[in-house]
């Protein structure tokens, strides 16, 4: 698909959402659901002066969180997918920790990691990493066993097997898990950026909410959603680059 066509699509999607939003806000006629027009004009007003700095803080936290989760989660997921033993030992632990609402561990994390960015990123990682691990593990498990045969007969070591088979074959699932991780990271900002900081989109939205300023709150949401869209598009482009064999299928 050409870049131009894509842009048309995304604009199209935005327009659809706007119309929907407009409809709901017109029906509700309550400041709880401000009209998108009001939000956009507010957004334009406050973006440079007030919001951009929050956006950058959040971006860096998203990057750090997703990056670290992938760096730690990917190898674990890959190993759990490939080595029966790892899966046997680790999956009960993952299954037990995954469903815990990590926010409930906030007091513990703040005590261990303080109030700064570190504890924010730790929470983010705690939330995201399990999604990454489970998605990658399942992806690796779904590689047909025959795919390994050529490498086994070559006596390839684990490094080669990971490099030549497991990583490329599970790359599409890896990107799926990246998508999910990223979206989660963004929505988690909302909890992590409410303490110990005065910067970040999460803080911005929460602060606006506390001040019952729904216009600003929705401006923040719009910006967050555009950040998300941009990152999603980046992953789509990455996929087209990396999985050419995959896209080239008829």
């Amino acid at each position, binding site marked *: 698909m050409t870049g131009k066509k894509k842009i048309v699509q995304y604009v199209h999607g935005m327009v659809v959402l706007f119309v929907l939003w407009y409809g709901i806000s017109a029906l509700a006629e309550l400041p709880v659901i401000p009209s998108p027009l009001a939000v956009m004009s507010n957004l334009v007003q406050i973006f440079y002066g007030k919001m951009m700095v929050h956006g950058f803080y959040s971006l860096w936290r998203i990057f750090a969180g997703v990056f670290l989760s992938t760096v730690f989660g990917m190898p674990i997921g890959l190993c759990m997918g490939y080595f029966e033993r790892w899966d046997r030992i680790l999956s009960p632990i993952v299954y037990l920790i995954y469903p815990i609402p990590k926010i409930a561990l906030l007091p513990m994390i703040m005590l261990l990691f303080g109030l700064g960015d570190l504890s924010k990123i730790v929470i983010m990682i705690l939330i995201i990493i399990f999604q990454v691990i489970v998605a990658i593990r399942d992806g690796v498990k779904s590689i047909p066993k*025959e795919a390994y*045969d*050529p490498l*086994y007969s070559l*006596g390839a070591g684990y490094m080669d097997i990971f490099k030549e088979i497991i990583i*490329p074959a599970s790359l599409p699932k890896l990107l799926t898990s990246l998508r999910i991780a990223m979206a989660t990271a963004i929505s988690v900002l909302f909890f992590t950026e409410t303490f110990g900081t005065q910067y970040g989109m999460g803080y911005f939205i929460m602060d606006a909410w506390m001040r019952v300023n729904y216009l600003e709150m929705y401006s923040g949401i719009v910006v967050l959603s555009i950040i998300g869209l941009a990152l999603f598009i980046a992953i789509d482009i990455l996929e087209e680059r990396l999985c050419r064999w*995959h896209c080239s299928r008829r």
Partner: protein
Amino acid sequence: MIETRDLTVVYKSRNSCYTALDKITMAILEGETCALIGPSGCGKSTLLKVLAGIIREFEGQVAIKNQPVMPKRHRIGFIPQNYGLLDWKNVYQNVTLGLRIKDGKKKIDRNDIAHILDLLGLKGLEERYPNELSGGQQQRAALARAFLLKPDLLLMDEPFSALDAITREEIQDVFLYVWKKNPVSTILVTHHVEEAVYLGKKIVILSDSPGRILKILDNPLFGENDLRNKEDYFQMCLELRKIIKEDWSK
């Protein structure tokens, strides 16, 4: 030298066992070629997978150069029945896979590769992914991978089955050309009686499943020049065909 003694392989599925090979005892001398003939489903591929180190659960002994099968130590060129190409690598990457793993990236000799690809009629297809190739081209890519590796032991599972009559003869000669430069112990599974006589110094005939050894023939014609047009060759083929027909209908 490749030896098996009382090799028995049993497949275990969910709630049943299936004996695929039953007490196979055979030996192939260093630098000898051996053609394996057997009815469909008798366990030929299974035998090759055992020798390639892919199936590791079996009874009896298997030895390559007096050692148990160790793909790490030996240099095994294995062409599985479904070619074993990696979908996510293009022809060039697939063809050099063995070299990359056994010798590392640096030792790759581009001229050699170009030469083999040319002999196999794959020139110009280097950038294609397997799913953009015809069946025969995929098979030739698998052959290229095995030939390039210059293995100690070459295992080929119906390596010419997807080739037309003419290409087939050409590629058989390519094999002989490569083999003569570097006489490697070879086992090839084939369904063509002519192919067995043309390429096998030894011809092993297996029984219907569970596979047992019916006969091991020595082929005095192997290696003669211009064999295909000789009367002896036809005679031998006819004879072999007769043996097979009698044995398998028992």
